[in-house]
């Protein structure tokens, strides 16, 4: 279908983009890669009055080293992120997960920041950014503020971004040596969204799991952490039995939706199975 009419601007600076967005009112929207927005415009699920194209803003593109963290510009395309040497060295979980997002053509246009701002409950990168302790840098008419990933994802397709704010960049702390990672995704067709996904980051110390972080995709309106599993893993032996015992709690306290892809109890089953797999890979077991 053809989208409803809207105005389009492509500002040359972030400051101009922020003023265009705040001048455009509630129905103005940022356009990044358009890979989530365009399908919504075409089926007229969204009908913004103004699109502010931020995909070419130099300030929003590229990846840099910032000492104990790497910084990913919001408009950096998925394809660039997954092949970037800094990402591969310091946040390989992001590279691995991005390679599972959509398909190559969509990854050429879709952006890292767009995925986070879109906040689809089935999105893979929100969960990964939560597990890695990412910090989102937002710019608005009153300047910049930083929001932790744990506060950024608020509800279905809803983040801490105000209508007149732009996600500028994402700071990803380097986890350093000793950490292993994995992302497991269950979906029915190759390019489809996760029915359930699990991100794991595990730090090993002499045969024991010293610390573990487990994030769940599509088990709630926003990405969450499997807290019981994480505490069961802390200090546990890095072996198959201990991991299986901890993974059995991965769905504790969750209340996932039932839809045409899976019923709630099947989603909980998937969360437990995928957690076991992801933690085993991350722990090198």
């Amino acid at each position, binding site marked *: *279908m*053809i*989208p*409803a*009419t*809207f*105005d*389009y601007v*492509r500002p040359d600076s972030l400051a101009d983009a922020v003023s265009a967005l705040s001048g455009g009112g509630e129905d103005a929207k940022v*356009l990044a890669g*358009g*890979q989530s927005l*365009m*399908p919504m*415009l*075409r*089926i007229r699920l969204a009908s913004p009055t103004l*699109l502010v*194209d931020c*995909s070419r803003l130099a300030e929003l593109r590229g990846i840099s080293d910032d000492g104990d963290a790497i910084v990913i510009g919001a408009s950096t395309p998925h*394809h660039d992120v997954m092949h970037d040497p800094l990402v591969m060295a310091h946040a390989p979980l992001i590279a691995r997960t991005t390679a599972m997002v*959509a*398909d*190559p*053509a*969509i990854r*050429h*246009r879709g952006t890292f920041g767009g995925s986070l701002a879109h906040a689809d409950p089935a999105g893979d990168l929100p969960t990964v950014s939560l597990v890695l302790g990412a910090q989102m840098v937002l710019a608005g008419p009153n300047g910049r503020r930083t929001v932790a990933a744990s506060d950024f994802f608020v509800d279905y397709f809803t983040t801490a971004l105000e209508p007149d704010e732009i996600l500028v960049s994402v700071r990803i702390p380097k986890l350093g040596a000793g950490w292993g990672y994995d992302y497991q995704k269950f979906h029915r067709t*190759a*390019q489809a969204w996760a029915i359930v996904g699990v991100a794991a980051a595990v730090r090993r110390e002499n045969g024991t799991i010293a610390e573990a972080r487990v994030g769940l995709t599509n088990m709630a309106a926003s990405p969450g952490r499997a807290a019981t599993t994480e505490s069961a893993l802390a200090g546990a032996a890095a072996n198959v039995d201990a991991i299986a015992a901890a993974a059995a709690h991965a769905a504790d306290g969750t209340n996932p939706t039932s839809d045409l892809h899976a019923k709630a109890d099947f989603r909980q089953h998937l969360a437990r199975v995928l957690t076991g797999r992801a933690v085993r890979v991350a722990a090198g077991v």
Partner: protein
Amino acid sequence: MARIAVTVDGTAREADVEPRTLLVHWLRDDLGLVGTPVGCDTSNCGSCTVMIDGRSAKSCSLLAVQADGTQITTIQGAANGEWHPVQVAFKDCHALQCGYCTPGMVVAAIDLLSENPDPSEAEIREGLRGNLCRCTGYHNIVKAVQQASELMKEAAK
């Protein structure tokens, strides 16, 4: 209306477009380049795939204004006097039946081979995961990409 300047299949074009015009509609309806079909409304099928600045993109999932300043190659620009090796291989391997997915499939395969000249079968299936074919069962498409890879390696020698 917004003014755009785009090079399409080697020809410089300038046009005034409505911001809501999808790139694929501009290519088909305004430029008459109907070699690029539309197969879905959900960005899933990949039949509309074109190259933008040397990388594959789904032309139904982009506004024409977003393509301003870029170089686009559609299936109609894939052949350079002679058929592209991917086109030759698709014919030889009978990698199409109705042909609806073929323009996108060929462009996606060209993109895949430009990044990975010698892909494994798994890498071919992975690289074409954004392109759906409702007829062939993919088997001959994978064979065609393998053959194209051989043809292109031969030609590069």
